[in-house]
């Protein structure tokens, strides 16, 4: 099973898709606008947007007949932040555990 990160890297491996992200970084855009900007067919652009959506990098919303795309980085940021929070918790625990291990080692040496 590919990890989400794999999906992200796969999505970013394509120059057009990176361009789309850059474009959406400036403002939201419809699929038609994106297709025009990158001189592509609607179908081709839909595929690219689909890959970006799958990776959680872009979200789309359909209003009437227009599908608007926007950057969807938020979810990835939240995951990264949560993992960093976990790392800090474990790091604090493990620093204290270092001391416990040192104490136990010293005790063994004294007992010998």
């Amino acid at each position, binding site marked *: 099973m590919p990890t989400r990160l794999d999906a992200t890297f796969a999505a970013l491996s394509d120059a057009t898709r990176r361009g789309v992200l850059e474009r959406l970084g400036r403002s939201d855009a419809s699929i038609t606008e994106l297709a025009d900007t990158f001189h592509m067919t609607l179908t081709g652009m839909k595929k690219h947007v689909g890959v970006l959506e799958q990776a959680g990098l872009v979200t789309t919303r359909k209003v009437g007949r227009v599908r608007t795309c926007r950057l969807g980085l938020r979810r990835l940021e939240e*995951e990264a*932040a949560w993992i960093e*929070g976990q790392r800090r*918790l474990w790091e604090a*625990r493990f620093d204290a555990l*270092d*001391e*416990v291990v040192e104490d136990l080692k010293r005790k*063994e040496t004294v007992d010998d």
Partner: protein
Amino acid sequence: MTSRTTVERTSDRELVTTRSFDGPARIVFEAWTRPELIMRWWAPKSFGMTFLSCETDARTGGSYRFVFGHPASEQPMAFFGRYIEVTPPSRLVWTNDEGEDGAVTTVTFEEDDGKTRVVVHDLYPSKEALDSAMASGSTGAWPEQFEALDDLLTALGASA
């Protein structure tokens, strides 16, 4: 000092935490199973946590119960479950039963040249379970961590 603790989401439903310790596996394993030792490190003071009680019956099929206090919470918080496997000094597996969809935690201790590499695997029953743990912060995201999270989000936002 550079950080030696790594945390990685290795799949849709698994989180892996790793760190090395300067001591034999026998000693590190002891520190993970004896209540009076666990109480010295599991609830970091810098996170505002205080241990109220710690009970472990570190045998396969035995149970454990950790109770913490935190200034942000009026009620003490209890974490409990049972040991699925206890194999000194190399492997510990326990359940986290305080909520639905809790992870199964597997800890391995690998000794090499007097040092011990500890790997903590948290395996959730589904992708949704890990996603919701992340969303709720239930796997140990304490108020201080949310502050840290805010800092990080700001930093990420600034660099995006």
